C-alpha cells in the first residue's frame, strides 16, 4: 500500500512535469500563439486553487464557497508589497518575500475565520466563506493606500484625502486597485508552485495528521471517541487550504497589470467555478482537480472561435466529465481497464 501511494503521487508529479515539458517545447518551436501563452499562468493558478479547495472539500469534508476570497487576500497583500518595494529590493528575493507575505496573510485569514466556524458542526463554513468572499472584495475596493517621503498613508474615503506629498505614490487606489505590479510570474514558476502545493497536500493526506483529518470527514463522532482533536485538525486543514489559495493569488497578481477586486476574478461565480473543477475532477481526488482545472479553464478559451456554440460545448463537456467521474458503472469499467493494464505491467516486470 505504501508503495502504491508513493507511486500514485509520483504519477501526479509526472503528469504535471510531462505537460510542462510539452508546453515548453511547443513554446520554443513557436507553435503556441500569444493568446495561448497568456493562458498558461492562469491555468497553473487555477489548478493550484483547485488543489487547495479539494483539501478543504474533499479531504476535510467542509464546503467552502468563498475560496477566491483567500486568493484575493494573497493577491493584494503580495502585490502591495511588490509595488511598495519595487525599487528597493532586487526581483528574486522580492518575489520570494511576496510569496511568503501572500501565503501568510491568506493563512491568517483562514485561521481567523476558522476559529469561530470550525467549532460548529454543519454547513456553517459554506455560509461564512460565502460572506467572507463578498465582504473582502468590497473592503479592498474602498482602501486607499499611498507612500511618500513621510511614510504610509491610509484612507477609506478617496485618494485625495490621503494628503500625499508631491513625490508620493498611490499604491492601492480604491476600486481601481493596484496598477503596475511587476510581471514576475511565469509558467515555470506557476508549475513549481503547483508541484509544491501537490507535494504538501499529498504528503499531508498520507501522514498522521491527514488520516485524522479524513477520519473527521468520515465520522466525526467516532473520531472524537477515538481521541482526535476535531477542532484542531479542522483548523489545520482549513488554514493550509487558505494558504495554498493565497499562493495562487500571488501568481495571479504578478501576472496582471491592473489588479482590481472585481467579481469577475474574486466573486461568488469565480469561487463556484473552482468548486466545479473540484467536483468534476473528483472530490478527494487531488490529481483529478489539477486535470479538471486545466481542461475546464482552457476549454472555453480555446473555443472562443466557435463563439455561438462555446457555452453549449462547455456544458456538454461538464456533463460528460460528471458521468465519467461519478457514474458507478463507468468507474467500474475504468477500474477493470486500468486494473488489466497494471496487471499486464506486473507480469512484464516479473
Amino acid at each position: 500500500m505504501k508503495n502504491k501511494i508513493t507511486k500514485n503521487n509520483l504519477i501526479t508529479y509526472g503528469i504535471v512535469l510531462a505537460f510542462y515539458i510539452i508546453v515548453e517545447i511547443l513554446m520554443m518551436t513557436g507553435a503556441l500563439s500569444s493568446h495561448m501563452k497568456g493562458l498558461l499562468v492562469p491555468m497553473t493558478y487555477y489548478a493550484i486553487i483547485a488543489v487547495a479547495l479539494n483539501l478543504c472539500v474533499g479531504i476535510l469534508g467542509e464546503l467552502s464557497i468563498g475560496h477566491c476570497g483567500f486568493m484575493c487576500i494573497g493577491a493584494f497583500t503580495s502585490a502591495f508589497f511588490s509595488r511598495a518595494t519595487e525599487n528597493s529590493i532586487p526581483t528574486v528575493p522580492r518575489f520570494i518575500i511576496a510569496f511568503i507575505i501572500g501565503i501568510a496573510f491568506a493563512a491568517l485569514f483562514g485561521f481567523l475565520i476558522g476559529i469561530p466556524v470550525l467549532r460548529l458542526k454543519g454547513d456553517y463554513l459554506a455560509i461564512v466563506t460565502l460572506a467572507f468572499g463578498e465582504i473582502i472584495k468590497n473592503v479592498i475596493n474602498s482602501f486607499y493606500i499611498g507612500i511618500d517621503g513621510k511614510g504610509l498613508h491610509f484612507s477609506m474615503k478617496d485618494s485625495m484625502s490621503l494628503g500625499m506629498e508631491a513625490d508620493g505614490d498611490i499604491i492601492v487606489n480604491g476600486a481601481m486597485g493596484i496598477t503596475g505590479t511587476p510581471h514576475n510570474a511565469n509558467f515555470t514558476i506557476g508549475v513549481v508552485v503547483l508541484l509544491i502545493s501537490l507535494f504538501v497536500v499529498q504528503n499531508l493526506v498520507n501522514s498522521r495528521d491527514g488520516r485524522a483529518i479524513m477520519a473527521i470527514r468520515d465520522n466525526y463522532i467516532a473520531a472524537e471517541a477515538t481521541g482526535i482533536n476535531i477542532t484542531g485538525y479542522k483548523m489545520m486543514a482549513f488554514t493550509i487550504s487558505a494558504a495554498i489559495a493565497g499562493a495562487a493569488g500571488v501568481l495571479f497578481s504578478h501576472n496582471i497589470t491592473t489588479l482590481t477586486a472585481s467579481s469577475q476574478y474574486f466573486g461568488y461565480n469565480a469561487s463556484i467555478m473552482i468548486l466545479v473543477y473540484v467536483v468534476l475532477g473528483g472530490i478527494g481526488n487531488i490529481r483529478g482537480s489539477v486535470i479538471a482545472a486545466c481542461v475546464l479553464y482552457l476549454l472555453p478559451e480555446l473555443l472562443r472561435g466557435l463563439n455561438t456554440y462555446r457555452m453549449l460545448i462547455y456544458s456538454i463537456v461538464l456533463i460528460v466529465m460528471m458521468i465519467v467521474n461519478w457514474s458507478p458503472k463507468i468507474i467500474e469499467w475504468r477500474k477493470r481497464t486500468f486494473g488489466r493494464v497494471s496487471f499486464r505491467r506486473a507480469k512484464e516486470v516479473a
Partner: protein
Amino acid sequence: MALLDVNNLSISFGGLRAVDNFNISIEKGELYGLIGPNGAGKTTVFNLLTGVYKPNEGIIRLDGEDITRKSTIEINHAGIARTFQNIRLFKNMSVIDNVKVGLSEHFKYSALEGILHLGRFSKVEKEMDAEAMRLLKVFDLDAERDTLAANLPYGKQRKLEIARAMATGPKLLLLDEPAAGMNPNETKELMDTIALVRREFDMTILLIEHDMKLVSGICEKLTVLNFGRVLCQGETKEVLANPEVITAYLGE
C-alpha cells in the same frame, strides 16, 4: 480500588430523568453487562461515561481519576474507548488506516515532519504500521489491511471497530450492543472475539446487549436498568434469576 467507579450519576432531558442515581463499580479485568428494556437509558449511561453528555449530578472515577466533566477526547486519552450501536467506521479509509487513526495519540511526529515526510516520519510510520498489523492479526483482519472499511462484511466491520478502539490503548472498553444485527453464527464469533480481547489485552469490558445468550454466556456481572434506575445488580446468575428482572425485562 475499582477501575471504574460511578456514584449517583443522574441526567435529565427536560422533564425526563433519563438516568437517575446510577451507581456501578467495575473491577479491573471484569466483563460487565448492562442490560434493560428499550429506552431504559443504557446508551445514555455510555454517553455520560464518554463525555458526550455532561451529568447533572454524580461523579465518575476511572482508576481513581475524576473524569466527570471532561470532554470526549480527554476521556479517551484518560483510557475509555468505545464502539457504537450503529457501526461508525471511517468508511472511506482503508482498514489499516482506521486502526492507525486510533494509534495516533501514541505515535507522534510534528505536522511539519508529516508534510515534508522528513525527520521522525519514516521511523514512526513504520512503527505504527507494525503495531497496526499486530492488532489486525489479533482480530484476524490482516488479510484485509488495504480494503476500504465500507467494503468489509458486517461481522468484520464490528471487529474493526473494536480493533480501532483497542488501538487507542484503553483501560476500559465500552461495547454498545456489539451483537445487534448479527445472526447466531456471527454472534458466536463475536463472543470469541470478546473473549480474545480479554485474554490478549487483559481488558476490562462493559457491554450493553440484548442477546441473552451472549450476556449469560460471557458476562460475569450484570446491572439491569429500567426507566433510568438500577433495578438489580450482581453476579449474572443471581440477577437473571431475580423475579423483578424477569417481570421487567426477560418475561416469564
